[in-house]
């Protein structure tokens, strides 16, 4: 193999004693962070579950009291049922809709369509939930005209929001799988006479099975720990009707019943660990090496029953258009809502196109929202700096020098898949002890819990394909590995890091649980004694929503919250396919 093309993927160096020390140095900050802010909380939850908060706020041991509470809690059954309901409905709707969508995306091969489809996954979930809430309002929303039904009375409302938010990612994983099918396989199936649906069933779907499983698992994790839409709809739906474990544990924490909240979180930890395990297995596990028990598979027999026909182009585009309407409808409505004068917001029947558009709501969303906007921006930038300077060196050491081996990588992926609600209690305790509650510091320090694994995983995949001779040259030129990384490697990887940076920003921008738990007031513009750090997601999800019902400003604020994700999508437009072509998905 030509030396120039040697990359970490082809050349994992394992027996290099002196270099290991330096690789360790690059990884050290990330490891310390993970130990303190992820491993400790996982253990901390267990400790908290045996404790109770007294009236004075002190924690005392109570043995199994909190666990016993499950048995006498009148709501637990309902909450658990709701959780299972989300877990079973959303992922399967996702996959059932994602496969045709992915096939349509591949067939139409339209980049614009891909970007529009992806939009929902990139916008803050709070914004998505709020948009649907406005759409599904039977009196003031557009459903008044065609589906006047009390959506607020049904748990399916949450399912719709969940599907809308998670379907694009599921489709993207499957779509990149379809696109990664080698040209020769495509040509072989052409020569063998396979077309359209038959080819999809007999060749494509079995080929990309790992991609499908992966998006299924991610979907299950997403749906099981649904939080944002439940938070947003509180106060407008019948009490407790749609509450799941994630929201319930937050509610318990909020009312000061910390021990019981810890028990609920432990239940969720167990569920999510099982799913993380499945995720890592699918992602890292190659295909099995055993010959099949049968000469022919049942799937092939089943799949060969499908018609060998290419879908007419018109039908494909028509189906694509229906998907687009579903994805864009709430955003279009929110935009229309945001430019209506106040008097038209609460009219029955609802006004669709206002005759006198006004920017009044934008002005108030910016002026009233300014403290929230500032917090969100400052925190997002702070988190971005931490995650990039801690995450990329670690990812490089892991990819190039296999530092930490499989264990570290699997741990990162494990944290990647854990819902952030799991870390809520111990992180609150830590920040409380440090006196940082209701400061931006609390958010900047804790957000990397869910941002860092994403940054490491993205950069890890980037560095797996980074030419090995570059740091070798730097070493020979007299730079130690740490110096080589920051002086040579990092400047050369701007391209890959850029994506991680933007991603980091977007995740921070849309975060809801941590700011809810760690802050309680907006940033005070009093610079002499600054305090408060509520974020723009809280402004949208609570302040304007169920706390005050300012639909106009709410719509305008929602539109404003779309700006960073739109910028990200625009910058990433040409690399989407490559980014999600995660390893391990090939036979």
């Amino acid at each position, binding site marked *: 193999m030509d030396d120039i093309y040697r990359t970490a993927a082809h050349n994992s160096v394992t027996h290099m004693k002196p270099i290991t020390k330096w690789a360790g140095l690059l990884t050290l900050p990330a490891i310390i962070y993970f130990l303190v802010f992820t491993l400790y909380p996982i253990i901390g939850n267990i400790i908290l579950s045996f404790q109770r908060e007294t009236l004075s706020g002190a924690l005392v041991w109570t043995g199994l009291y909190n666990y016993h509470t499950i048995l006498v809690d009148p709501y637990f059954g309902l909450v658990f049922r709701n959780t299972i309901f989300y877990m079973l409905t959303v992922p399967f709707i996702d996959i059932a809709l994602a496969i045709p969508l992915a096939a349509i995306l591949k067939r139409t091969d339209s980049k614009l369509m891909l970007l529009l489809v992806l939009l929902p996954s990139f916008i803050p979930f709070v914004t998505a939930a709020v948009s649907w809430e406005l759409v599904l309002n039977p009196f003031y929303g557009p459903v008044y005209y065609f589906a006047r039904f009390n959506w607020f009375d049904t748990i399916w409302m949450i399912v719709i929001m969940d599907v809308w938010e998670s379907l694009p990612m599921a489709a993207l994983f499957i779509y990149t799988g379809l696109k990664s099918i*080698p040209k*020769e*396989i495509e*040509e*072989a*199936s*052409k*020569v*063998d*006479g*396979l*077309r359209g649906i*038959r080819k999809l069933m*007999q*060749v494509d779907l*079995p*080929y990309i*099975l790992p991609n499908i499983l992966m998006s299924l698992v991610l979907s299950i994790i997403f749906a099981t720990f649904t939080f944002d839409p439940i938070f947003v709809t509180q106060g407008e739906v019948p009490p407790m009707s749609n509450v799941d474990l994630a929201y319930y544990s937050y509610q318990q924490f909020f009312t000061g019943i910390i021990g019981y909240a810890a028990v609920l979180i432990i239940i969720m930890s167990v569920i999510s660990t099982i799913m993380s395990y499945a995720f890592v297995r699918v992602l890292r596990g190659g*295909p099995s*090496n055993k*010959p*099949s*028990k*049968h*000469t*022919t*598979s049942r799937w*092939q*027999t089943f799949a*060969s029953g499908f018609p*060998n026909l290419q879908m007419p182009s018109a039908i494909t585009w028509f189906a694509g258009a229906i998907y687009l309407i579903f994805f864009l409808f709430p955003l279009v409505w929110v935009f229309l809502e945001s430019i209506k004068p106040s008097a038209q917001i609460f009219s029955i029947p609802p006004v669709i196109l206002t005759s006198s558009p006004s920017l009044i709501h934008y002005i108030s969303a910016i002026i009233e929202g300014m403290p929230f906007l500032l917090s969100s921006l400052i925190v997002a930038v702070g988190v971005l700096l931490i995650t990039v300077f801690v995450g990329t060196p670690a990812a490089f050491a892991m990819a190039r020098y296999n530092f930490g081996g499989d264990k570290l990588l699997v741990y990162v992926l494990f944290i990647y898949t854990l819902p952030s609600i799991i870390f809520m209690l111990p992180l609150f305790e830590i920040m409380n002890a440090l006196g940082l509650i209701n400061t931006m510091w609390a958010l900047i320090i804790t957000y990397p819990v869910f941002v860092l694994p994403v940054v490491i995983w993205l950069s890890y995949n980037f560095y797996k394909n980074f030419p090995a001779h570059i740091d070798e040259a730097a070493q020979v030129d007299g730079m130690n590995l740490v110096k080589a990384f920051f002086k040579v490697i990092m400047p050369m990887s701007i391209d890959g890091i850029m994506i991680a940076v933007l991603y980091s920003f977007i995740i921070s921008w849309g975060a809801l649980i941590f700011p809810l738990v760690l802050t309680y007031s907006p940033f005070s513009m009093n610079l002499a004694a600054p305090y408060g750090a509520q974020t723009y997601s809280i402004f949208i999800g609570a302040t304007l929503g169920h706390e005050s019902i300012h639909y106009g400003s709410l719509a305008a604020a929602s539109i404003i919250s779309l700006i960073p994700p739109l910028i990200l999508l625009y910058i990433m437009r040409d690399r989407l396919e490559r980014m999600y072509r995660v390893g391990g998905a*090939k*036979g």
Partner: protein
Amino acid sequence: MNEILILEKVIKKYGNVTALNVERLGIEQGTYNVILGPSGAGKSTLLRTVAGLDYPDSGKIILDGKDITNKPAWERDIGLVFQNYALYPHLTVYDNIALPLTVKGFKKEEISERVMQIVKVMGIEEHINKYPRQLSGGQQQRVALARAIIKQPKLLLLDEPLSNLDAKVRVELRSYLKTIQRQLNITALHVTHDQSEAMAIADNLVVLNGGAVDQVGSPKDIYENPKTVFVSTFIGMLNIIPASTFRINDGYDAVGFRPENADIFEDDGDISGTVKYVEYQGEETIVYIAVGDNTVRIRDRQSRFFESGKKVNIKIKKAFAFKDGKVVKSILF
């Protein structure tokens, strides 16, 4: 003459580059045909237009009397073996081979019968439960071959089928290809850039150069009677020296001769030169001799050794006279 495949005035361009420009090419039923040429000569383009994976800009492709020029791949009666096998990784060997038949709507029993029959012929019956990744390169290529011929196509296309294999397996499999083709009486069209592979298995050799067919014929015919400078140098080694080196001068540009068609003498010869160095190759030596400004290679069957700088004479038994890139005359001395 029973030509099963005919290409007529087939032109394929990529942008401004003419990748393929075939005036006429006929392939006879039941023969093993090898398309040979350097990279960029249009070999793959030719194969892909016949397969229906690319379409020509103009011209006609006729398979068994039917015009298939604009038919998609799945409506052509062809089988194709890919360089990297292109087996379906998620299917067992059995399912890989059976797939083309399931598409054609054969009954389960008939599929099973035909698959079992072909795997026996191919010598891969013990692998039918395995997945492609569990097989060696040579075994995978046999599976690919089985998949290509199970539907009994009118034409078997092979796109550099041996290039991904190591040298030993390559030699083994190439004689196997020929055997299978004979046994099943298929018409094969095999693309390669490896001239020794081409010489070894072709009934009929098609030499492509710059998208056009330079010469068609049996390997022996092409080796002995090349029509162009390109063919004579691409197939076998050739020394080319200006015609003026010889006393004969009938307006030729140059004269070429093969290293084995000349002998070295100390006293008598057609041309003389100085030994540069000698390559020892066991049963023979290749002697490099400077003749004027050119260096010629002479194959010496007696494995003689010559000192560098020694003056020697070369006697040529057979040579080609070139003019304007064409062979205008074979000269026998």
